[in-house]
């Protein structure tokens, strides 16, 4: 058991519970304070842990980029979950995607990082934003009632953070045999990890069949999306058409 970890998790749970949209009586400022506290405790814990593993070397400077990207990712993920306006939430998601792709670059996965931006920010989120725009009016309109009232906030936060606490305990209390290793230094990484050639060779030799299946999945979803989105009701009430509906 690690009490600092439990405190950080509990603070995070409180913060998120306070931040959840709940109509007029929202407590965003209090929740923000709690989340800052939670992240502060969490980062302090991580620094302390790094110092313990590295014989007093805290690694604050070296890990500055990690902490910055991680904080950005967490804050914007909380923004996605908690912002009452769907468009803002979608933008927070784009921010989170950028932060995560920054982390991927730190992990020597440049290709994945850029593909993440292209697919998530460039394709998926644009279509989400498109639907959000279709469904809501632009400008300064009040958020819909179902967006400002979250359902079962307490239970959801409680269950999820118990899960998080358990996972974190498992990660940090696994002892030296667990996850306490540092990642290999960039110059020590073998096999040209992160190069396009290695990734491509891996995808097209070892995972050739799954890759083909993924392609088939995409094709099926393309056909399916076209079938679902096909208009089977006349649009005449919007425009009026040259050819009258057959029925």
């Amino acid at each position, binding site marked *: 058991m690690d009490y600092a970890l439990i405190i950080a998790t509990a603070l995070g749970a409180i913060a998120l519970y306070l931040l959840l949209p709940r109509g007029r009586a929202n407590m965003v400022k209090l929740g923000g304070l709690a989340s800052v506290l939670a992240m502060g405790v969490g980062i302090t814990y991580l620094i302390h842990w790094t110092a313990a593993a590295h014989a007093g070397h805290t690694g604050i400077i070296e890990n500055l980029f990690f902490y910055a990207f991680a904080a950005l990712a967490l804050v914007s993920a909380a923004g996605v979950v908690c912002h009452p306006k769907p468009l803002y939430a979608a933008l927070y998601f*784009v921010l989170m995607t950028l932060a995560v792709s920054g982390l991927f670059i730190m992990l020597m996965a440049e290709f994945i990082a850029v593909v993440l*931006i*292209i697919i998530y920010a*460039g394709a998926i989120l644009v*279509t989400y934003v498109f639907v959000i725009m279709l469904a809501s009016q*632009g400008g300064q309109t009040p958020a819909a009632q179902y967006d400002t009232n979250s359902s079962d906030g307490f239970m959801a936060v409680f269950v999820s953070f118990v899960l998080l606490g358990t996972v974190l305990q498992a990660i940090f209390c696994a002892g030296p045999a667990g996850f306490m290793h540092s990642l290999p230094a960039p110059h020590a990484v073998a096999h040209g990890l992160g190069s396009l050639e290695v990734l491509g060779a891996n995808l097209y030799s070892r995972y050739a069949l799954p890759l083909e299946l993924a392609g088939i999945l995409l094709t099926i979803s393309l056909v399916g999306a076209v079938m679902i989105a096909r208009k089977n009701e006349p649009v005449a*009430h919007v*425009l009026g058409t040259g050819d009258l509906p057959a029925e």
Partner: protein
Amino acid sequence: MVGVFIAHLIFALVMLGMVTGIIAYLILLERKTAAWIQDRIGPNRVGPQGLLQPLADGVKFILKEEFMPIHADKILFILAPIVIIAPALCGFAVIPWGGDLAAGTALPKFLGGWAFPHTFHVMVANPQIGVLFVIAMASLSVYGVVLAGWASGSKYSFLGGLRATAQMISYEIPMVLSLLSVAVVAGTLRLGPITDLQATYFSSVSFLPAWNVFTQPVAFLLFVTCIFAESNRTPFDLAECEQELVGGYHTEYSSMKFALFFLAEYSAMITGSAVAVALFLGGWHLPWIDQLLYHGAQPVATGWLGMLLKFVVFWGKVIAFLFFYMWVRWTLPRFRFDQLMNLAWRGMIPLSLATFVMASVFVYLRQEGIIEHRGWLLLGNVVLIGIMFAVTELRPADSGNRRMYVLNSRYNPIPASAKAELESAV
């Protein structure tokens, strides 16, 4: 290593200066081009031949009243111009504009005089995913348009934003595929090597440089069409067409915020042109001169003087391409929205897929040793165009343009009985 770092810093500054300088004079060039095409004189009052016009425009933008509509979403309204300009400027980072600097070239004395330990490309950054980085930045630029349209709280802006979104995601697909078919043949995603690869000539037709525009003309056409669409210029400017939407997504913007949209459009144009030049038009390669001077291909790695020459050649090509951009804008009429979507989804996406498959087949054949030179791709492209025309002939004819009757309009020619029937059907 310090020398390399300083050199990259200089490259970044040069790039930034070039871009902002070019943008200012691009606006003048645009107005002069428009005047030339419409048989007018154009701006000629400020300075000699109107050369100080950009300064006057800038001062005017700064002095205009900053205006925000009362229904606007304040945060997003301010955020939108920032979001649109940042990715537009980021794309320059991976564009190679001066060939390679040879190992041993030293920085000038006043910068420390460090010599470079190895040859490197003259560009701000050379990640192994260069082409994908350009695509990623292009795909991020749609958010500025969307936010501007949504945050303004005005119908025209909103419609402009919706149109821009649909248009940009549609035209991104053929753009990516045409870029990838170039990258597949080059075997790398770095822009520098792709450019260097083009500094040769066809083996059989030795006067024709083996630029990608000559080996893969279909991909080039697709790419050019797509960058026109991505930068929202006529004939694809449905997101901001004056006759229908006032100003489209930037209707409600004024002063410097509007100027930022303007700058973003022009910097997107410059990025697009620079990518087109680097990937398709040979980059820094000046054809024929190298045959005369070197009796062979131009050397890829040079010293500072060579870099300067390549710089001039590269930017000369970019400016020529930008002129082509403007020429098209003031010549072609605008598409209708369904025509725009048809062009992307029923014309360009199948064609770009075919180009990509053809490039892959070429790479396979080259690997097997059946064909050697990239010139064979030209033959493949010609065949592809032939097949395209044949398929167009075979395809069932479109229903053509239909009349759209608008219910409840006083110009509605539908007889009252048919109207009642239609409404009951609804």
